[in-house]
């Protein structure tokens, strides 16, 4: 942490030295960096770090990164509304919330991410996207790719291959976008489909789109080729060395304070707790022995926690005191199946040891967990 100010100066200094050595008389310097990590939290932390600590008054940065399977939601979105959390947990796909706005995307190693850092005044998304399109066309002239006014890049005029988001601070800004090279479309569509019904929220909704991989147009394309082409175009356009510096986001010495940023991004309070207030109003059927029961659930969720909870069960199907205990326990708890099961199973310890009661209780709890 102590090193920030000096690091800023060093970085500035070293960049100026480099450009003058190369004989350029550019008024602004720039660097291209690429992450060696595939961890979504580490890479997002690098973005935060550059945004918070680098002096971009006279220089710009292009940051290249890829992640192992992860779903990334926008700053003001609702993960329950945007993706299938159950499926994510089952498939061990990470969930991250980024600090920029926009919608939800799926990342895997077949997708590349580009972040354009500039000072606040030079924030210009269209230019960046046009740069990407230019690079793609240079690589593959027959590609029909264009930028829309929603800052998407479309392939063949109908398939989205890139989504954009941005973050503006006081003095710096960044614009990042994805680019689908060879991602798993099946997983993408299944995880980005929310099974949760009855959600009412003011969170930013995503706009679903049909996607396609660039690989499908030109099977010779790889992520490395794309990254290289874009880096080259960036270097040319901004008159800097086409030199990509590899960085390790886990290097606390190089990026002081980065580990704290990673932890912040991994924290439940950030990923889930930052969800704007929303309500859940739904019902489900439970099949128990020969009958089908209707259960109505109403919940209000604030900061990812259950503020208000109402469970409407057929009368006397379960002891009413037990039900009210469950509602009381759930109030204030995270909207998390793990916590719900811990609380629900604990309550059962205090009850008469009746197999019938146990199986009914378990059935109700399993269904409640499905809502989370």
């Amino acid at each position: 942490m102590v090193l920030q100010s000096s690091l800023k100066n060093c970085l500035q200094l070293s960049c100026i030295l480099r450009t003058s050595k190369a004989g350029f008389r550019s008024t602004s310097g720039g660097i291209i960096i690429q992450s060696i990590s595939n961890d979504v939290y580490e890479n997002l932390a690098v973005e935060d770090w550059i945004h918070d600590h680098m002096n971009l008054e006279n220089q710009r940065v292009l940051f290249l990164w890829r992640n192992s399977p992860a779903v990334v939601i926008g700053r003001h979105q609702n993960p329950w509304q945007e993706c299938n959390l159950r499926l994510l947990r089952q498939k061990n796909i990470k969930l991250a919330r980024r600090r920029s706005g926009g919608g939800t995307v799926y990342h895997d190693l077949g997708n590349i991410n580009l972040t354009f850092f500039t000072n606040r005044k030079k924030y210009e998304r269209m230019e960046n996207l046009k740069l990407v399109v230019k690079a793609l066309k240079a690589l593959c002239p027959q590609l029909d790719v264009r930028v829309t006014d929603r800052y998407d890049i479309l392939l063949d005029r109908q398939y989205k291959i890139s989504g954009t988001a941005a973050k503006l601070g006081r003095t710096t800004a960044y614009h990042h976008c994805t680019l689908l090279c060879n991602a798993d479309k099946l997983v993408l569509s299944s995880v980005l489909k929310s099974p949760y019904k009855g959600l009412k929220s003011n969170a930013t909704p995503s706009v679903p789109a049909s996607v396609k991989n660039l690989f499908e147009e030109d099977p010779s394309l790889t992520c490395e080729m794309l990254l290289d082409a874009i880096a080259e175009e960036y270097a040319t356009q901004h008159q800097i060395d086409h030199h990509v510096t590899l960085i390790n986001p886990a290097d606390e010495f190089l990026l002081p304070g980065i580990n704290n940023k990673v932890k912040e991004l991994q924290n439940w309070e950030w990923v889930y707790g930052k969800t704007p207030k929303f309500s859940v109003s739904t019902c489900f059927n439970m099949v128990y022995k020969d009958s089908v029961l209707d259960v109505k659930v109403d919940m209000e969720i604030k900061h990812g926690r259950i503020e208000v909870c109402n469970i409407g069960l057929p009368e006397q199907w379960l002891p009413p005191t037990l039900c009210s205990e469950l509602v009381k326990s759930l109030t204030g708890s995270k909207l998390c199946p793990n916590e719900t099961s811990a609380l629900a199973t604990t309550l059962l310890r205090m009850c008469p040891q009746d197999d019938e009661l146990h199986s009914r209780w378990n059935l109700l709890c399993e269904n409640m967990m499905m809502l989370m």
Partner: protein
Amino acid sequence: VCIHRVRSCSSIGFIKSKYVCVFDKAALKFSHQQRLFRTSAVSCGQIVQFKLSDIGEGIMEVTVKEWYIKEGDSVSQFDSICEVQSDKASVTITSRYDGIIRKLHYNLDDIAYVGKPLVDIEIDTSKGVAPEEDVVETPPMSHEEHTHQEIKGRKTLATPAVRRLAMENNIKLSEVVGTGKDNRILKEDILNYLAKQTGAILPLSPKAEIVPPLPKSLPAAPKDKAHKIPVPVSRPLVFSGKDKTEPVTGFQKAMVKTMSAALKIPHFGYCDEIDLTHLIQLREELKPVAQTRGIKLSFMPFFIKAASLGLLQYPVLNASLDESCQNVTYKASHNIGVAMDTEQGLIVPNVKNVQVCSVFEIAAELNRLQSLGSAGQLGTNDLTGGTFTLSNIGTIGGTYAKPVVLPPEVAIGALGKIQVLPRFNEKGEVFKAQIMNVSWSADHRIIDGATMARFSNLWKSYLENPASMLLDLK
């Protein structure tokens, strides 16, 4: 107006009305004397309408998504005020002034317009925003006086001169270690911060350099579970020094409920030591066999199976006492719970029907429960119906323990770590033994000491001489 303010402040000091008292809650901590000084210095603030500045790209309106401050909070220049969103861009709006927030012009999810007022800030005109000699204005107590703000619960104490120095050098006060009283930041602290030079620059050689990835875990001593003390993970130092109160929810709440119920149970303890030398050898032989079947074999499956064999002889330990203590139910199934420490807290899933499972089947089931447990995906069925529990606290450390019986069960065992200790054999010779301690706790309302002791002896004999388990395995 000024006089009015001073008078009302000095008489009560707790008036919440915004337009009367200018000091914030935190000032209540300081001496009455100081407060008076402060109010007299800070009288007659000017309300400025802070307008939403240009976002760029010709954007004229944005949606307010989150407020970082509320009316009455004091802010400093560059503190974050709110987060707005426009067309996939999230913008952090920071304050241009030092002062106190008097009015928020928008609610959450409202549309805010560029060029229109966002918040009203009451500026302390005697201080001003430009770096002038504001120190002159304040009374002679300026050495003691400090400005402070509470943004998101963090206070940084520093005099106006220090704050100006920080601002000029683009330093965030929150990132500087204060060495003054109450962690106040002094001028020397800022200068030290600036002076610290290191060689940390990005690698700039012409060839792309690969910085080898550091191991995920923080640098710690190599993990040698049984014998070395792990180096404690270093945590970032926090200097706030303030008590934090949070509601009890989730896993903690579950534990509170369980343990409060356990209080009703009169516990007694019984401890012993087990020589695991033979078992360790046996496990070494069987580990690769289990591996070929895709299962990781620990000691627990043996402990669990031996417990079940013991429960066959002493079924009262696998029983349950009803609410009124009128009836004891001897449970037919041995559903043996295994205490598991997860990131979120303590959970106790159980292996069902151990009485009809082989050691291998128990091992397989344990693998399943452990992987589900660490992924936070255990179902309610795995977490309910337990009849007896074992807690292997020894994997973390410790020898003897005093475990708490988990209702509706009546007994529990805590297993300590395995230590290499010298012991005497029948010939009176000293030999190297692998010793593990076990601590049992039981419900003294229906379990007596003798039963617990005999059960423990039987369990111990099975484990010290694993071949004997073969005789009784069903």
